[in-house]
């Protein structure tokens, strides 16, 4: 109950931040700008709308996760509101978990809004409507599947931002989290380098990097979603990828709880 109350308060606090709405607004604007592709053939237009839309969700989702999360705990400490909360019967770990869940709600709301906006834009295309509403909705609902999978991976990013914000300042936390996000997004590339490399030591290093750094590339199922094909074993893949994201988030949140427990506030 305590955790839930902190989560709700965090959600409320985040939704009052202008920066989040600005980022969301820009993302929705990019998604809604599909009419600029009107001079393309219908099939080309769909590919462009889907790829640009999913790209916008990926980048702006990460932006929201970083900017909103990194300032949360430092602001509480600066304003000394953390004392008020911790003076009540609230454990420090409950405070951290509550914050994390609050951010999860914020991310979920943002991603769902962006995903639904993209789905509406796609459904608004004449060539899609010609398929029949229900058939088109079912085939394009995978936009939401890709968006939801991204949500779990942005939880990892938020967990990193919380951990770094406990250990450092807001700005450093944003920079470090951004670095982790970029390196983690290169995971597919790192894996392909393993096969290219001839040196066994380099191969071991790259493999370790691939396995230790959070693998944001797992959230990228865009090619099948954009071009409308379903790879074999997709359901199992999604389960494994979500389990990975949740496990990684659990590790980071655990470390954050222990770090915050020992922190002077």
């Amino acid at each position, binding site marked *: 109950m305590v955790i839930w109350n902190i989560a709700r308060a965090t959600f409320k606090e985040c939704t009052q931040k202008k920066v989040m709405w600005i980022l969301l607004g820009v993302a929705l604007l990019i998604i809604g700008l599909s009419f600029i592709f009107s*001079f*393309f*053939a219908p*099939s*080309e237009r769909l*590919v*462009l709308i*889907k*790829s*640009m839309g*999913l*790209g916008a969700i*990926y*980048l702006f989702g990460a932006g929201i996760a970083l900017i909103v999360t990194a300032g949360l705990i430092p602001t509480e400490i600066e304003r000394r509101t953390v004392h008020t909360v911790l003076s009540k019967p609230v454990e420090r770990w409950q405070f951290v978990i509550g914050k994390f869940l609050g951010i999860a709600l914020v991310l979920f709301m943002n991603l769902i809004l962006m995903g639904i906006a993209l789905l509406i834009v796609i459904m608004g295309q004449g060539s899609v409507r010609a398929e029949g509403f229900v058939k088109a909705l079912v085939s394009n609902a995978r936009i939401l599947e890709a968006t939801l999978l991204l949500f779990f991976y942005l939880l990892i990013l938020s967990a990193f931002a919380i951990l770094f914000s406990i250990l450092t300042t807001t700005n450093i936390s944003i920079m470090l989290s951004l670095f982790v996000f*970029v390196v983690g*997004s*290169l*995971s*597919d*590339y790192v*894996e392909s380098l393993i096969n290219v490399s001839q040196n066994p030591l380099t191969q071991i290093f790259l493999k370790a990097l*691939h*396995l*230790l750094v959070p*693998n*944001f*590339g*797992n959230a*990228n*199922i*865009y*090619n*099948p979603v*954009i*071009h409308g*094909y379903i*790879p*074999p*074993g*997709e359901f*199992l*893949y999604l389960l*494994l*990828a979500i*389990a*990975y994201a949740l*496990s*990684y988030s*659990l*590790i980071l949140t*655990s*470390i954050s709880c*222990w770090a915050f427990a020992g922190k002077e506030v």
Partner: protein
Amino acid sequence: MKRRLWLIIVFLLVILLQLKVDTYRENYKPGGTTSFGYISREVLATALMGLREVAASLLWLKIEDYFHSGEHEKITPLIRIITWLDPHFIEAYSSGAWHLAWNSEDWRLIPSAEEFLKEGIKNNPDKYELYADMGWLFYDKVKDYEKAIEWYKKAASLPSPPLVKRMLAHSYERAGRIEEAIKIWKELVEEGNKLVERNPNNFEAIFDRDVAVHNYNMCIIRKVDRAALAKKPKTYYLTYQVYRVSPRILQVRARTNLPELSRIRVSLVDADIERRKKESLGWQLMNVTEYRDVWPQVKGGEMKTDIDLTDALKYPLKGESFILALSFLPQTQPIPVQDYVGWLGEGMTGKDVIVVHTSPPGKKMEKSTTLTLEEILGQQTLLLKEVK
């Protein structure tokens, strides 16, 4: 101690999950068979962030700019990069092949268009579009109807719109395989009837069905009419003169009794063109000259056309001798001309008519002559050759 143990256990779980995820991950990567040694930095950066499809789409927008600004030479390399980034971007293969085969107006690039489409098919074997594009390449550009049939058959075997099957029927007719064409039109009529019965307001199905009915009837009529041609073939002739108008510009003046509006193919190629093509690297065909014009028409028993070789990039004239050929291919003629000569030239005879194949009987007219480099590059206006 407990904390460390907890962390180690969960981290091991994470590693195991990632190893398991990796076994499926290949299915989600764009993959593809195109390889590149170079690529622009901004594209690479975006692509490496895992957003290869976004990078491909951004480049696609750039292609639109190049197309409208007339910078066509920049389009094909960019399309190659797009298909490298996203090998499932079907439109990129279609558009790339169109630029190579049609828009470039360079016959040397047709094999490259074919290779490009084959690469797209390899990366997207379950989509009908590129098989159909290949069919159209052979039907409209190369005018090799047997190959068009081969590709349209493959396209029609996959889920595809009625247009694909219609093109298969047209290809059969052009190839002179009229019975097979009639069979396909009949199937299309029956399929159309079923769709219209199911939904009488489906105007698209009504239109498609009516097109099939019309073509079915026309095939039956032509089959009867053209069968009579083979019994009384007419003697046709073709003679021509080649003039040099100025350096690199030749003029061909032909006389013939072929039907009005017959199309005569004019070509001028290196005498050793096959060897030169083999020695060229990929899309670099700097030593190959291949001029082809499929449009010259017979009007009032004459055909006159200029062979303009002044574009030295397209027509490098690196060889010592060249083959100039005029040919009349019954298969490629407009329908009113085929009404006189038949699908495969069954209504043609004479010393200028060559039998190409006997089963089914196929004939054509082709007369060639050899020109030297000096003859093409000379200054004075001159009659170079007379071919009778």
